[in-house]
């Protein structure tokens, strides 16, 4: 995880080292460390007698404190290349501030831009001046350089104070390569980094602004954008604001950057301090007001103090952040990056203090925005991961809601089914009670008050029928074992009452259940069959065999009575229920067969398929 994060950093370092690795000056190049200097308000280099020798690099803060805004420099050099060589010669100036004009042997050969205020800012732009061969003499060449700049007191950084570095003269080809490397390091890379920071910062600012809970993103975005703007000083040459305006803005921007940086470190650490929320903007205002009050002349002195204050604030916030996050695994990453930023800041301070501008200070200037980019990537990664987690959580929540909804619906359905069942059950009971109370009572009255035995019997049978129907109505399935018990008890006791010897054979302990309808219909058939035996057969013995197969159960009722004659058969079918027995068996998808012959008794075979009988219909 950590390795890929460092890979871009390594790539950047390699690039910077390549850019910085200026080879040693070749033998043909001439390093010039001294010049004649004269005040620069004149239109051309004055009489050499009025000039003074200076060593290069010449920093005005030492050699011309509080003096004019311009100076002349004159150097003399011999023709370097042999006459037969037609190599183009060039002058390379690593650092000149703010702007320059170059004259070769009195001929104007190079201008860096505006020489009057507002000056073109070339402080960070290495200058390469081709020296036309036609203008070069064999001996005693003179180069006059007019430099225009600002005194240190008027600029916020020592690097933008007037001055001229050492000069190199040599083959254009070789110096051009050196110039290109230096330009890349000081101009192109900052440009690219600025653009990146600007884009990323803007993106992060919007992200943090929309997402108030991630306000650290907004502050980081502000920090990045602010830094990108400040970095523009490195490559932007003409700013239409005037010198003091630009310097004021740059200093003031540092206040904003500090505000954003400190708030970012606090918020990223998960802390929000009301006091800091108020103090930082106040400090910004204070900084701006103090700069205005001090005026452009004392800008450098005041800015130096402010730099120190602001830098200490950021260092303190960084230390707090690292301390606060010490338990997090990622503290090493942030800690390392913050240390690098602090180191870069220290180098910059050192450069400001001494006025020297070694290569490392240029690199340090670049390290800070590069680290910003890395931190930005890290934040985006964290944000993305949090987003991913949030979405996962949301998906899980949705899933749970869906499940809960399904559960509720299921429960509701069950509840309503239960309700329907309850209502149905209640209604059945009511109908059953009504039948008993009303129809039952009337039938009962007929049973016991009729003079005709036949009507009594019919009414009794009707009453039994009614009761069975009511039982069918209540519709509860019956265990086959229980049903067999009921049937056995009824058949055997009725036969016994009629003085017929009954003999029952049947299975016990069956796991199957029977629908109420099948139970009721089978009861009716058995009852009818028993009645027939009692009334018509004249038998003395009757055997009942109940058996169960895979698909059906079967009753065989065999008596030793007279059997059914042909005439009686017809009669029975009409009046004694054989037809209704057969019908009922048919309704259950079974069959009821009657085998009989005069003198042989009667065999009734009742078959009811189990799968039909088992289904509650």
């Amino acid at each position: 995880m950590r390795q890929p994060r460092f890979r871009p950093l390594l790539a950047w370092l390699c690039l910077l080292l390549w850019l910085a690795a200026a080879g040693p000056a070749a033998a043909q190049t001439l390093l010039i460390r001294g010049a004649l200097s004269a005040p620069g308000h004149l239109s051309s280099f004055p009489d050499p007698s009025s000039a003074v020798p200076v060593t290069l690099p010449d920093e005005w803060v030492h050699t011309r404190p509080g003096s004019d805004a311009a100076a002349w420099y004159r150097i003399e050099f011999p023709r370097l290349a042999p006459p037969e060589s037609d190599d183009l010669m060039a002058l390379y100036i690593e650092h000149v501030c703010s702007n320059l004009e170059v004259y070769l042997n009195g001929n104007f050969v190079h201008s860096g831009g505006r020489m009057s205020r507002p000056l073109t800012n070339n402080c960070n732009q290495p200058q390469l001046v081709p020296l036309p061969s036609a203008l070069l003499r064999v001996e005693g060449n003179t180069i006059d350089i007019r430099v225009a700049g600002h005194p240190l007191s008027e600029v916020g950084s020592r690097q933008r104070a007037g001055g001229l570095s050492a000069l190199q003269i040599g083959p254009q080809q070789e110096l051009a390569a050196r110039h290109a490397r230096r330009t890349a390091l000081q101009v192109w890379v900052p440009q690219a980094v600025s653009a990146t920071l600007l884009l990323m910062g803007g993106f992060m600012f919007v992200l943090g602004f929309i997402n108030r809970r991630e306000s650290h993103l907004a502050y980081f975005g502000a920090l990045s954008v602010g830094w990108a703007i400040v970095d523009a000083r490195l490559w932007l040459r003409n700013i239409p604001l005037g010198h003091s305006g630009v310097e004021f803005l740059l200093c003031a921007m540092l206040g904003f950057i500090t505000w954003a940086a400190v708030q970012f470190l606090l918020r990223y650490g998960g802390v929000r301090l009301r006091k800091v929320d108020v103090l930082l903007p106040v400090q910004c205002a204070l900084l701006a007001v103090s700069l205005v009050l001090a005026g452009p002349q004392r800008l450098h002195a005041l800015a130096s103090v402010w730099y120190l204050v602001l830098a200490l604030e950021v260092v303190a916030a960084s230390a707090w952040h690292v301390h606060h996050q010490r338990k997090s695994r990622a503290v090493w990453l942030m800690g390392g990056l913050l240390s690098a930023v602090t180191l870069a800041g220290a180098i910059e301070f050192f450069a400001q203090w001494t006025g020297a501008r070694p290569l490392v200070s240029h690199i340090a200037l670049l390290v800070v925005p590069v680290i910003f980019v890395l931190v930005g990537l890290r934040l985006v990664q964290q944000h993305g991961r949090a987003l991913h987690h949030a979405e996962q959580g949301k998906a899980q929540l949705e899933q749970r809601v869906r499940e809960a909804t399904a559960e509720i619906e299921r429960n509701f359905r069950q509840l309503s089914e239960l309700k329907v069942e309850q209502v149905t059950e209640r209604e059945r009971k009511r109908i059953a009670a009504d039948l008993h109370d009303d129809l039952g009572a009337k039938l009962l009255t007929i049973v016991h008050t009729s003079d005709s035995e036949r009507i009594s019997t019919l009414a009794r049978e009707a009453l039994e029928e009614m009761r069975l129907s009511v039982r069918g109505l209540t519709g509860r399935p019956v265990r086959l074992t229980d049903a067999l018990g009921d049937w056995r008890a009824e058949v055997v006791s009725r036969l016994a009452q009629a003085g017929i010897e009954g003999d029952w054979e049947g299975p016990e302990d069956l796991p199957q259940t029977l629908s109420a309808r099948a139970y009721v219909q089978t009861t009716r058939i058995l009852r009818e069959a028993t009645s027939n035996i009692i009334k018509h057969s004249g038998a003395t013995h009757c055997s009942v065999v109940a058996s169960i197969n895979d698909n059906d159960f079967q009753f065989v009722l065999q008596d030793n009575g007279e059997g059914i004659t042909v005439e009686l058969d017809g009669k029975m079918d009409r009046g004694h229920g054989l037809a209704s027995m057969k019908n009922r068996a048919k309704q259950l998808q079974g069959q009821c067969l009657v085998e009989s012959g005069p003198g042989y008794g009667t065999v009734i075979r009742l078959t009811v398929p189990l799968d039909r009988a088992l289904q509650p219909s």
Partner: protein
Amino acid sequence: MKTILLLEDLPEIRAWMRKLVLQVFPGATISESARVQDAIELCGAVKFDLALLDLGLPDGSGVDVVTKLRDVQPDAQSVVVTIHDDDEHLFPALQAGAFGYILKEQPRELITEQLQRISQGEPPLSPSIARRVMAHFSAKAKPQPQSHLMPNVSLTDRESEVLLRVAKGYTLPEIGVQLGLSRHTIADYVKQIYRKLNVSSRAEAALEAQRLGLFR
């Protein structure tokens, strides 16, 4: 000389029953009632030997009379006379203390015989009632919080055996033959079963009442 309570709302049936009872118990004193409330009042006033009680009456259930009689006259025999042959109607009456039941629509001879048997201590027991009794006691056999209000009423092995056989559809005489017992012994078992059902149900009801009381 017997004193008999007759609870029946249909006048024709009541008259018919009265005639039948007088045939079985000649010279008996019969108190008739068509309403549960009247019957309960009679229970407090007259000493009965036998009560023939219908279940579905216009102002309530005959079960209430069974309960009342069991409370005030423990020696009186309650017999349910009904057209309901299903255990759902009969079982509560048996739990309340009824000693047997008679189905009204049966032929006169059969009812006469059953009435005689009951008065001689031979109550009927159908397979479905036997199953309900078995279920009642097996549910009680599960571990339950015991209470002093809950006497440990349980069936003997013989009683259980008789119940099981009745449930399978064997008639009481058949069971007597199978177990090598006399008709009277079997009848005694059945009587014991009815008695235990009543005692156990009453204890249960008392416990339930206490539980509800505690919650109040």
